[in-house]
């Protein structure tokens, strides 16, 4: 009886004449191809085929389909020898069904008695440790915020959109932790001591060293009777009664809190806690992005996602909704078609003539100049708006009018929001003219939008600082413009506060006043223009940029307004529900599919850029700008950072020497060089690994060809013998 030749001797893409040898039935006799069934690779395929039913073969075969974690598995099945304790993996990592796993476990347990007492103890210890970890994981999953909400979103919309919501949850947690830190180390001691509970001392200001003029600081609108609407204005813009609460920098005038024996240095705590919070954010974000980063490094192909990733990991198995699955089918089809089309286009592009290339490059250059011009217009208008707003904030005639005052206060925020809205529209129009590949188009547009959003904040801060510090006579006594800004940190904090409040108002207003009516219009009116407009698309990049922008404001404002993270936590908490309701009811998911992995990586990269941007103003204001003399904990110092050297001077001499040594160049330069060397070593190692992988790949192809050749020769030899 003639068997089919071994399955892996499938027709290789090459030789045509090989086929004849492998045609079944007529040509082969029983003896000629029996050896093929003895090939180890064939046996493993055979095992897989019969694995669903009979399990008899397994006992006899040593190269388990079971995919042993290590070679010691052989001993397991044969019941001989001793297991190495370190190698035994938990049962559940075997690809078997439950009855077979039970049997395997029984065998393992039977083997246990062959082990020495020490190994046995180690095994039981490992087992109970794993069990303990599982229990902890189970308990901690109860604490997870919004678990069911996110799961239902995942089921309806897929993992791409779910990653946006888990990103939002991450930000809520991050802001909450930062708030807890800032509150417990800065606000709590100050507040408690203001109530006289503990023995504390206020900031001592030796009057002869500082001009009296610098210390003149009164807050308007708190001492006299005011219109009621000023309270609302104060609430929305952080002036008036809010200015003297712990919300802003000016409140923290405590110098030292005495707790029995411990002297708690509040200015030092203020500075260090801010730095720790930002570093904590950095570490947490980097930790989360490490996975995605590794993938991006390892992948050799340049394209966004490889075909295998799209096909094998293309379907979201967690989709439960039939409509969503239909949508997923169509979006997968769309994605595949566009990718294949893009590939064909790329081949065509390679055939472009020089003339066409020149034309396209000129066009791109021109458009980039246009983009720069647009950006400068944005920046200039923000600059002017900030100047105007600052000049008119304390203008009394405007103060009488509620709307006028509020408008002036919020003018920078309004201009920034307008710029953030208009610029992306331009970018998405321009990018079509530039004729890049679709994947690159998306990336470039996103980068431009990110840049616009973050640079707008930078321009606002720059224009503020322009006014606060000046080069002329006005600023000489105190180092900053003391007449207009007796407590400039509070003012900066107020601007950040206003930006944040306005951002929240906009998110809320757009959801309620734009998306809902749009949904109602589209559902109930079927006239052409409205239907063409359609529902709002839930575009993930735009939403992500929105919340990253808000988070950057929060980070910049931490130093000037320690309670700002609390406001950010509450804001993002509410935004989660707004976005969820908006997604479920008023939006349609975007046609272009978003992949979870690259989304995660992209979100975290943008967040990291925002964080780095937040470090810059903080660093500058800590080291370069003079802290205000009329308020705050740093009155006695020339810069906020000076409190650290000042404290170090109070340390014992040995410790001082060590710390000074670390901060000096003699340490920093060699340290930097060592880090560079380590980095070069790893880069070289990665390059070497890559080369080895390529070599192995070639070798594998060769081996496969060799095997086919040998089989053919052997078959021929058997036939002739």
């Amino acid at each position, binding site marked *: 009886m003639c068997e089919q030749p071994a399955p*892996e001797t*499938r*027709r*290789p*893409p090459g030789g045509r004449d090989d086929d004849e040898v492998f045609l079944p039935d007529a040509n082969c006799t029983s003896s000629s191809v029996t050896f093929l069934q003895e090939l180890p690779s064939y046996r493993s*395929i055979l095992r*897989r*085929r019969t694995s*669903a*039913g009979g*399990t008899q073969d397994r006992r006899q075969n040593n190269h388990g389909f079971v*995919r042993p974690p290590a070679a010691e598995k052989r001993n397991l099945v044969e019941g001989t020898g001793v297991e190495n304790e370190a190698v035994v993996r938990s*049962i*559940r*990592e075997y*690809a078997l*069904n*439950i*009855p077979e*796993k*039970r*049997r395997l*476990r*029984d065998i393992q347990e039977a083997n246990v008695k062959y082990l020495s007492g020490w190994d046995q103890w180690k095994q039981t210890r490992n087992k109970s440790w794993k069990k303990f970890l*599982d229990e902890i994981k189970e308990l901690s*999953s109860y604490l997870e915020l919004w678990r069911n909400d996110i*799961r239902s979103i995942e*089921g309806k919309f897929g*993992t791409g959109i779910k990653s946006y919501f888990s990103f939002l949850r991450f930000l809520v947690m991050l802001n909450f932790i930062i708030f807890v830190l800032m509150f417990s180390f800065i606000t709590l001691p100050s507040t408690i001591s203001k109530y006289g509970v503990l023995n504390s001392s206020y900031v001592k200001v030796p009057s002869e060293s500082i001009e009296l003029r610098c210390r003149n600081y009164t807050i308007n609108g708190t001492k006299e009777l005011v219109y009621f609407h000023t309270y609302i204005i104060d609430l929305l813009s952080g002036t008036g009664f809010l200015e003297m609460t712990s919300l802003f920098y000016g409140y923290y005038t405590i110098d030292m809190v005495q707790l029995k024996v411990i002297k708690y240095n509040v200015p030092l705590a203020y500075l260090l806690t801010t730095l720790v919070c930002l570093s904590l954010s950095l570490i947490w974000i980097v930790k989360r992005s490490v996975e*995605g980063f590794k993938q991006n490094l390892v*992948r050799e*192909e340049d394209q966004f996602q*490889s*075909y*295998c*990733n799209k*096909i*094998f*990991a*293309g*379907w979201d*198995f*967690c*989709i*439960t909704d*039939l409509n969503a*699955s*239909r949508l997923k*089918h*169509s979006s*997968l*089809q769309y994605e*595949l078609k566009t990718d294949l089309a893009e*590939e064909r286009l790329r081949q065509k592009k390679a055939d472009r003539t020089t003339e066409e290339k020149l034309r396209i490059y000129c066009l791109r250059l021109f458009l980039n100049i246009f983009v720069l011009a647009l950006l400068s217009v944005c920046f200039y208008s923000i600059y002017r708006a900030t100047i105007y707003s600052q000049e008119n904030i304390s203008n009394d005639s405007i103060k009488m009018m509620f709307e006028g005052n509020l408008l002036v206060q919020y003018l920078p925020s309004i201009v920034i929001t307008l710029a953030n809205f208009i610029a992306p529209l331009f970018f998405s129009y321009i990018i079509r003219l530039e004729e890049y590949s679709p994947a690159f188009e998306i990336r470039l547009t996103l980068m431009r939008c990110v840049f616009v959003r973050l640079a707008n904040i930078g321009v606002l801060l720059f224009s503020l600082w322009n006014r606060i510090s000046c080069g002329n006579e006005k600023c000489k006594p105190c180092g900053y413009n003391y007449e207009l800004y007796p407590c400039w940190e509070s003012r900066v904090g107020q601007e950040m506060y206003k930006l944040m409040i306005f951002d929240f108002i906009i998110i809320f207003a757009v959801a309620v006043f734009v998306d809902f009516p749009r949904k109602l219009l589209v559902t109930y009116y079927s006239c052409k223009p409205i239907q063409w407009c359609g529902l709002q698309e839930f575009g993930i990049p735009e939403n992500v940029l929105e919340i990253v922008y808000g988070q950057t404001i929060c980070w910049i404002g931490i130093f000037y307004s320690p309670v700002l993270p609390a406001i950010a936590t509450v804001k993002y908490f509410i935004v989660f529900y707004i976005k969820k309701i908006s997604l479920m009811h008023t939006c349609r998911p975007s046609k272009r599919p978003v992949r*979870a*992995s*690259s989304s995660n990586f992209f979100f975290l990269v943008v967040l990291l850029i925002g964080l780095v941007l937040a470090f810059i103003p903080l660093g500058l204001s800590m080291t370069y700008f003079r802290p205000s003399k009329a308020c705050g904990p740093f009155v006695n110092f020339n810069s906020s950072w000076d409190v650290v050297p000042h404290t170090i001077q109070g340390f014992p001499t040995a410790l001082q020497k060590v710390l000074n040594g670390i901060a000096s160049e003699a340490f920093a330069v060699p340290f930097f060089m060592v880090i560079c060397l380590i980095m070069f070593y790893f880069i070289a190692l990665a390059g070497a690994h890559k080369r080895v992988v390529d070599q192995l*790949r070639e070798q594998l192809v060769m081996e*496969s060809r060799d095997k*086919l050749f040998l089989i053919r020769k052997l078959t021929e030899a058997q036939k002739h013998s």
Partner: protein
Amino acid sequence: MPRAGRRRPVGGVAVGRCPGDGDLRRGGRKRRGEGPGRSRGSWSGAAMGGSASQLPRDLLDEYQELTFLTKQEILLAHKRFSELLPKEERESILLKRVPKSKILTLPELRANPFQDRICRVFSTAEDGDGSMSFEDFLDLLSVFSDSATVEIKSHYAFRIFDFDDDGILDRKDLEKLVNCLTGEGDETRLSESEMDQLIQNILEESDIDKDGTINLSEFQHVISRSPDFASSFKIVL
């Protein structure tokens, strides 16, 4: 013979189901006394079929040890599985097999184009009709759970994608796979040339030994480089 208990998907939407095992016998409900090769190993017969709504404690611990599921997940699976059985059979949930048609009414599976293959792969029924026992169901959930390793997931993914069960992914398997992804119906399929181009690209990326097929090791290798696999190959009740 009309099939009792077979329901169309809710809303009458014909979800793209992929040709997996179209010519399997679909008889009525099969009563099976015991799953094949089930060993009574370590738990006592008295624990079997305890109270209607509870799993005995030692069985729960055993399942926790043998699968990647947590206690809550196992209990939830127990509840959902017993809902698929008619009332009078719920006492002896561990002995019964649920026919494939009922399993496919679960929301987690009904919208899935690979539903047939999944049932086929995880079912331990000897006659291959795709019916699942409770332990098969737990196996399914365990492989698709959050904490399962990528190795296990890729192993089972390979089996699910291997439509003709020959242990390798060849051109036909890949074609069927792509058609599953883009949806049933002629207008959703890719054209011949597009399909060829696509399969060519896939094989270029994953077929290391250039034999025109993807075997398990190659598949697992390409999956290990795929960043989306772990998050998309997931089912949670």
